[in-house]
């Protein structure tokens, strides 16, 4: 154990005192802050008034009804909490021309020139709109809502209901989002659900899961190139006289865990300070932090050992880059699975994916942080799976490391690595 700790200490200090690590530590918050800055810049235009041209072929007052619906929905709702920032639409009715295509071309050019945001055409078959939108904004949904609200007004008017009653009937009802009601396990007292404020409740666990992925990557990925570099520099043979391959690998994995925990502590402390500064400390997921660290340690042990093994099999750092996908895929894959889990956190698919050991740390942590949480046994089962998987990976990795560390020549392919695992 003394040798493992000695190797771990040297490797840990080498990592955390390197310029790359320190720069990376600062760059990530800058990137996140920068992305918020870019969003703020992108939203600078949002909130301004945009012109919408309506061409009404029905002749039945549809355009006027839509204009009225738009006027009413532009009033701030009493129940509004936080709504995504949107532009104000200024609807202008344009009389239909004989050559419809020529008129639409002219208005399309107005859109291209930025003078008009959208052209809405209503006829007996329905409504359609023309815009420059790439489809990621809310313009389509807003126009659809306005058209339908307007046409409902037309239909109700046709049924003989007067304008005042129509407005009263179509008035929005405030709907407030609440958190679930809980029961204090000690006193049995029922704790009412709180009114949700600010960002969606999934944001904090989402960022925590992303942070976990980052620290796992920061802890394990550098081993790949560093081990290949050390191997190319012929460092290991001198070390192998003093320490067994297992001691060497264990020391390096321990150093990876240390680097990950240092990164985690830095970011979590920074996050707490930000939340405190914004007077939103109640959003801090304190109950998730023990799980965060447990998952981080298990995941870095698993992927750190794997990256050490891959690095030892490579002849050069360039070769290590070619094998990097074997490390990156299990780390990055959960990020592509987060969206369906955010939508249905307790579906069978979400449960199954979060119990798959390589994905467990990120996905289970995410589900634990979402409203409703998960059954108490799922995190324990997931953690047990990750630990079992980590042990299996460490065992296989140590067999690859033992052979790879002294091997020379070309980098083995995946089947050869499997052969090393089986033959030892």
């Amino acid at each position: 154990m003394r040798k493992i700790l000695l190797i771990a200490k040297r490797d840990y200090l080498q990592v955390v005192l390197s310029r790359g690590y320190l720069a990376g530590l600062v760059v990530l918050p800058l990137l996140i802050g920068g992305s918020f800055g870019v969003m703020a810049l992108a939203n600078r235009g949002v909130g301004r008034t945009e012109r919408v041209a309506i061409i009404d072929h029905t002749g039945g007052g549809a355009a006027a009804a839509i204009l009225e619906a738009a006027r009413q929905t532009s009033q701030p709702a009493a129940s509004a909490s936080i709504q995504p920032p949107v532009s104000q639409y200024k609807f202008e009715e344009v009389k239909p021309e004989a050559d419809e295509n020529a008129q639409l071309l002219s208005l399309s050019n107005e859109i291209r020139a930025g003078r008009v945001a959208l052209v809405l055409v209503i006829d007996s078959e329905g409504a359609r709109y023309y815009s420059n939108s790439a489809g990621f904004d809310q313009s389509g949904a807003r126009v659809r809502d306005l058209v339908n609200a307007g046409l409902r007004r037309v239909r109700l008017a046709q049924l003989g209901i007067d304008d005042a009653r129509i407005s009263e009937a179509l008035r929005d009802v405030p709907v407030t989002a609440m958190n679930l009601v809980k029961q204090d396990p000690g006193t049995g007292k029922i704790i009412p659900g709180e009114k949700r404020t600010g960002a969606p409740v999934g944001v904090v666990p989402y960022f925590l899961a992303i942070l976990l992925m980052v620290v796992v990557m920061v802890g394990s990925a550098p081993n790949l190139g560093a081990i290949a570099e050390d191997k190319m520099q012929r460092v290991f043979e001198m070390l192998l006289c003093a320490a067994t391959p297992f001691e060497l690998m264990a020391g390096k994995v321990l150093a990876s865990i240390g680097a990950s925990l240092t990164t985690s502590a830095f970011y979590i402390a920074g996050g707490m300070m930000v939340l405190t500064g914004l007077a939103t400390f109640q959003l801090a997921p304190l109950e998730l932090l023990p799980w965060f660290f447990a998952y981080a340690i298990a995941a870095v042990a698993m992927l750190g050992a794997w990256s050490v093994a891959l690095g030892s099999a490579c002849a050069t750092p360039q070769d290590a880059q070619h094998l990097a996908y074997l490390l990156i895929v299990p780390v990055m894959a959960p990020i592509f699975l987060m969206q369906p889990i955010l939508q249905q956190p307790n579906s069978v698919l979400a449960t199954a994916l979060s119990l798959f050991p390589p994905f467990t740390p990120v996905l289970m942590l995410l589900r634990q942080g979402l409203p409703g949480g998960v059954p108490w046994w799922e995190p324990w089962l997931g953690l047990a799976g990750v630990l079992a998987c980590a042990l299996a990976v460490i065992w296989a990795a140590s067999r690859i490391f033992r052979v790879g560390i002294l091997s020379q020549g070309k980098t083995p392919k995946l089947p050869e690595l499997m052969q090393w695992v089986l033959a030892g």
Partner: protein
Amino acid sequence: MIPRMQAVEFTGVTKTFRNVTAVDRLSLAVEEGSIHGFIGPNGSGKTTTMRMIANILHPDSGTVRVFGEAPAGTRSGTIGYLPEERGVYRKMKVHALLEFYGELRGGRDVSPEIDRWLARLGLGHCAEQKLETLSKGMSQKVQFIACVAPEPKLLILDEPFTGLDPVSADALRAAILEIRRRGTTVILSTHDMAVAETMCDSILMIFRGKKVLDGTLASIQASYSSDTIRVELENGGALGPLPGIESVKDLGKVKELRMAPECDPQQVLQALAARARIVSFAVMKPSLRDIFVRIAGPQQEEVAVA
């Protein structure tokens, strides 16, 4: 007289890599406190043998004993190993690196020994420099210090003089001899036959994984007859055919003749005297270099596995 303990004993040791036999049923004994030289062509199995002594590789069959004990874990406290393929953490400072290796090998702070060795090998001023700033020779000396600072009982040096200038090589040679005088057993491999002849108490030659020579220089030479003539002629010209001479090697001013078993050196002398004025003429046993070339020369091949 009490016989000395064997520092290293191999009994029928075989090591193969896939289908290549690197070491083939090798038996050897290295006497404690001696300098034992390993010679042999590239790829003959010297490095594999040294790695098995250092317990970095394990034999497929046969037994390896170091100071009477079978291998268990690493032998870091007992053995200092300087591999042929040398490397260090280039970003570390010299003293910090040596402290790390010293603690890893010896399990204790070896700073006083490090300071003494740095001064002894003229590297005292480099203690706080990063390894990447040192020359190859200086870096090699640092690695040597990493091996000897924990004061091992057995020092294994795989081609320690390769790449060193004559001054550094002399300094290293003196250091090795001093270590031996303190009782440390030294095993070194070399391609320099002069080093093997002058430094080593006994010599082992491995060829294609098999032991082909083992003993003192005198005992090895004793197994060969005095079949070599070294002659220097005044005009230094070509010799032409001579009675009973199998081959002639031109060493420059001196020619080396190898006699057939039935050859009479007196007849050779007479034949030479009839052709030219003789400056020197000596009948001798073959040098270690000659013996090496006789064994490995005709079929010498580079073997892929060390």
